[in-house]
């Protein structure tokens, strides 16, 4: 740690008041390694700051000109270093090794008792939760084949609740996945049971587990610095997402829910809770 948060105006005013010939000037903190730091306050006057920093820069320039350092004597840091990340983890393997192949194959498997759209919602949630680039790419591909809307993908790509109608099957799948990942259980599974059935819920639980296993495997054994969800998140702005979520809530049709034997109050409460916690999930 170190450095100093300057009360720039206070110092300037004090300096002017105490020594009339002393104008507002340079306020660096000189660092022991050889150099300076500037840590202006949030609301320092930019014009005043520019003038002060120009003074400081001129001082620095005069110093190095007087020191007459040869180029060969300089540290090899004239430009920011290119960053190459090499993992020291001994478990890193190539993509061709069996454990990686097995994980990739698992991501592609269909899921009994769940639709392709259900599977895509689970996969996107799980891939983002574990920040697994390969799992996300596979999940996004499945989502588009299953005609999952771009706005839903964009929401999941930033860890937000998608604009699903609160009592819809999509919302139940999403809320259940969030609950499994966040709370390691389904504390309020009535709406999921009503919409997915017992077999559907069982398949969903197993799918979250298998997808998590694959994502963790890929994170460990097939390192990737890619973040493919960023491009998908950019499909929608925060404001657009908020508007869509509000519209989805307003357009909710209670009759549809009741026809399916769903306790609407319970379902809406569960979804509301899930929507509130979802942004914190990740």
């Amino acid at each position: 740690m170190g450095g100093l948060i300057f009360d720039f105006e206070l110092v300037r005013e004090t300096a002017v008041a105490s020594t009339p010939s002393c104008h507002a000037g340079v306020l660096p903190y000189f660092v022991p390694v050889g150099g300076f730091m500037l840590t202006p306050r949030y609301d320092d006057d930019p014009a005043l700051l520019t003038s002060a920093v120009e003074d400081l820069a001129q001082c620095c320039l005069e110093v190095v000109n007087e020191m007459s350092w040869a180029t060969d004597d300089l540290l090899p840091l004239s430009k920011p270093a290119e960053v190459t990340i090499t993992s020291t983890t001994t478990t890193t393997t190539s993509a061709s090794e069996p454990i990686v192949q097995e994980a990739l194959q698992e991501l592609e498997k269909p899921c009994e008792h769940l639709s392709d759209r259900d599977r895509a919602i689970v996969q996107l949630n799980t891939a983002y939760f574990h920040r697994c680039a390969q799992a996300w790419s596979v999940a996004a591909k499945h989502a588009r084949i299953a005609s999952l809307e771009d706005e839903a993908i964009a929401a999941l790509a930033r860890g937000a609740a998608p604009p699903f109608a609160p009592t819809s099957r999509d919302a139940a799948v999403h809320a259940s996945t969030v609950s499994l990942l966040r709370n390691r259980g389904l504390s309020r599974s009535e709406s999921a049971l009503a919409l997915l059935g017992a077999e559907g819920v069982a398949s969903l639980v197993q799918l979250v587990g298998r997808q998590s296993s694959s994502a963790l495997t890929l994170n460990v054994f097939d390192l990737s610095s890619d973040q493919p969800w960023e491009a998908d998140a950019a499909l929608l702005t925060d404001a657009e997402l908020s508007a869509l979520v509000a519209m989805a809530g307003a357009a909710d049709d209670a009759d549809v829910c009741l026809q399916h034997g769903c306790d609407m109050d319970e379902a809406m409460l569960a979804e509301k809770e899930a929507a509130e916690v979802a942004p914190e999930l990740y």
Partner: protein
Amino acid sequence: MVLFEPQWGSSVASTPWPPQLLRAYVTEAKRRGLAVICDEVMCGLGRHGQDARGATGCFLTECWDLRPDAVTFGKSIGGGAGHLLSGAILLTGASQLAQSSRTALQSHTYAGSSARALCNGAALLNRLTSLRSNVQAVERAVKPTLDKLRHDSGGRVLTQGQGALWGGLFAHSDLAERTAANVALKKKCAERGAVPASRGAAAP
């Protein structure tokens, strides 16, 4: 346990780490079962100036998606907004203070009332959104001049930073040469009528 500053302090004069590298370090540390603490005492609470990207924008770890186990913060509350908790900058008399061996020569960090710190913190969080644009204005005020210094000095002064945290390093490979340059810089700053460290700039 691993502790790191996403944007370094005085040891490397405000140099930000590459986010990609930090993410790799955090991942590696967690794989080894190490807790990760991110020290944002200097750059936190919006002083980093980075886009919030849909989150609060309080911390660089948040903006860069680093996901540490804990984050530290402090200086912004201590001296960057609201009431100063305590502190003094000496225009004269620093040498006498030093000779008397007083502890006030701790020259980095403001300290003081924890109740005031809480008030400052609350006020700061309420203003954070508007302050972000101020921090970005600070960056626009500082960056061009420091970029020019780096260029005009032929790489002899390495400048870096972001938001409201900037710095420059003398680039000679010999510490003795850098120290000599530091002394000369202090002298020149003093001659220009700034608050000169050579005459004492202490903030207990």
